[in-house]
């Protein structure tokens, strides 16, 4: 690991000033950043440790019924907050389906939003990667790419965004509060991450020094709490990134879907909101046929970026199944294997 200066600012203003310098990185939980630094992928000159900044570790209810989550709230604490998990069960389930218990205890809400892709070529400094080194090329294009993007990718980059948490956040219109050199502003999580285009090294809407201080969920999001699920297919039952995932939330009245929210994970460089599919579901009867048509719409425009044609149909099936499970109703308690379509106990195959 390259050496660095270590700074622990006492206030948000100090932090922003210290991190605006070139080569500076924020450190919070460190679960992604230290791994990247050990591999030589991230090489900051300066770490600005924000893990003790006061006031950023609270979960607050807002007057509109929404919730405001400080950027330093730990993933595990948010997932196990009873009030939060009751209002936003798909988000709690997504959090619990990610990483391991040890990592969820350390990882923060703000850091999770900014975690980097898990593309193996991004991680291997001997490989060409336009994200790591602009203009170097992309070894993933002709490499092991069965897990890469099927939506929104470019010739320059076919990496996916790995977060589970962000998928239901995007579906439920979450917003981040950002403190920067010019003051505070807000950005929808849907607009936080960038598609690669010709500049895959630019991953988010953040400017130098920008610090995510909080995440906010609007009150109307909790109107979906009775019918929402997160479903994730991975290559082993637990402690693995999504091959594809889907967050589905429905508002059902008198046997009709009044409003639908749908987003996909593991398919693009950002969590993928499927608005056309949502519109198709609005006013529809909650039937498998409607879910399948919505799933086709959600993947409209998808194309393989390599040996990953299978992900398109897999994603459609996961979308349809997430909608089916959401319509069946949010379970009283998160499943033993959160977000998993499988169970290791015999006789309980459909755990999710």
């Amino acid at each position, binding site marked *: *690991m390259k*050496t*660095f*200066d*270590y700074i*622990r600012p006492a206030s948000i203003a100090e932090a922003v000033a210290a991190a605006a310098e070139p080569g500076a990185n924020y*450190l919070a939980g*460190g*679960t992604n950043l*230290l*791994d990247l630094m*050990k*591999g030589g992928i991230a090489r900051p000159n300066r*770490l600005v*440790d924000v*893990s003790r900044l006061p006031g950023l570790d609270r979960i607050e209810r807002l007057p509109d019924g929404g919730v405001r989550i400080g950027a330093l709230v730990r993933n*595990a604490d948010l997932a*196990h907050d009873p009030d939060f998990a009751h209002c936003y069960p798909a988000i709690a389930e997504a959090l619990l389906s990610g*990483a*391991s*218990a*040890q*990592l969820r*205890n*350390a990882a923060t809400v703000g850091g999770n939003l900014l975690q980097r892709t898990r593309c193996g070529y991004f991680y291997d400094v001997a490989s060409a990667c336009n994200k790591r080194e602009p203009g170097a090329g992309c070894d993933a294009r002709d490499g092991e790419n069965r897990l890469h993007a099927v939506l929104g990718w470019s010739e320059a980059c076919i990496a996916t965004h790995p977060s589970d948490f962000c998928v239901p956040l995007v579906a439920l219109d979450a917003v981040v509060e950002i403190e920067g050199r010019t003051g505070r502003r807000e950005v929808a999580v849907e607009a936080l991450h960038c598609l690669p285009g010709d500049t895959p090294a630019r991953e988010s809407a953040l400017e130098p020094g920008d610090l995510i201080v909080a995440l906010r969920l609007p009150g109307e999001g909790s109107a979906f709490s009775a019918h929402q699920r997160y479903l994730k297919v991975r290559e082993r*039952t*637990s*402690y693995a990134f999504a091959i594809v995932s889907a967050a589905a939330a429905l508002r059902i009245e008198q046997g009709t879907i009044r409003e639908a929210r749908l987003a996909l994970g593991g398919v693009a460089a950002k969590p993928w909101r499927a608005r056309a599919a949502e519109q198709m579901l609005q006013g529809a009867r909650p039937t498998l046929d409607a879910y399948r048509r919505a799933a086709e719409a959600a993947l409209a425009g998808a194309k393989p970026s390599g040996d990953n044609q299978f992900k398109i149909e897999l994603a459609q099936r996961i979308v349809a199944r997430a909608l089916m499970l959401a319509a069946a109703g949010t379970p009283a308690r998160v499943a*033993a*294997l*959160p977000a998993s379509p499988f*169970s*290791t*106990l015999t006789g309980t195959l459909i755990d999710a």
Partner: protein
Amino acid sequence: MNLSISLTVNGVRRDIEIEDPRVTLLDLLRERLHLTGTKKGCDRGQCGACTVLLDGRRINSCLALAISHDGADVLTIEGVARGDQLHPLQAAFITHDGFQCGFCTPGQIMSALGLIREGQAGDDPERVREGMSGNLCRCGAYSGITEAVLEVQKSLVETNQRRSA
């Protein structure tokens, strides 16, 4: 750069000078405090061999910078037994053959301690397996590990019931 931190490790306060901010909590425990029970497996947060309790919660000590945790309370495998008296989890790992080579065992036991404190798994084997998924065992002693954790969970539940009765 000279940096000074203080940690409470297994109940004992330690003041430590660290010359380099890159020192992880794992390396500090092993190289500076000579507490080599905490193992370095992958050193990248994937195997769980380095699990310790930091302020009462299980974390991967390989992904924690020591400097960032000034003032923290750390419990390692060396602080789990009381003298020669094994912690019930340690005894249960022996009873249930919860290990073979033993390399992952300190991490498994610290993780199981964290799991029990979190109180989310109860006596459900599937929740215990899921809750322990951050600890790999290349010998494949998983069934013994799960049985050991379940046994301790069960005896804790019974103890609590007796207390509240």
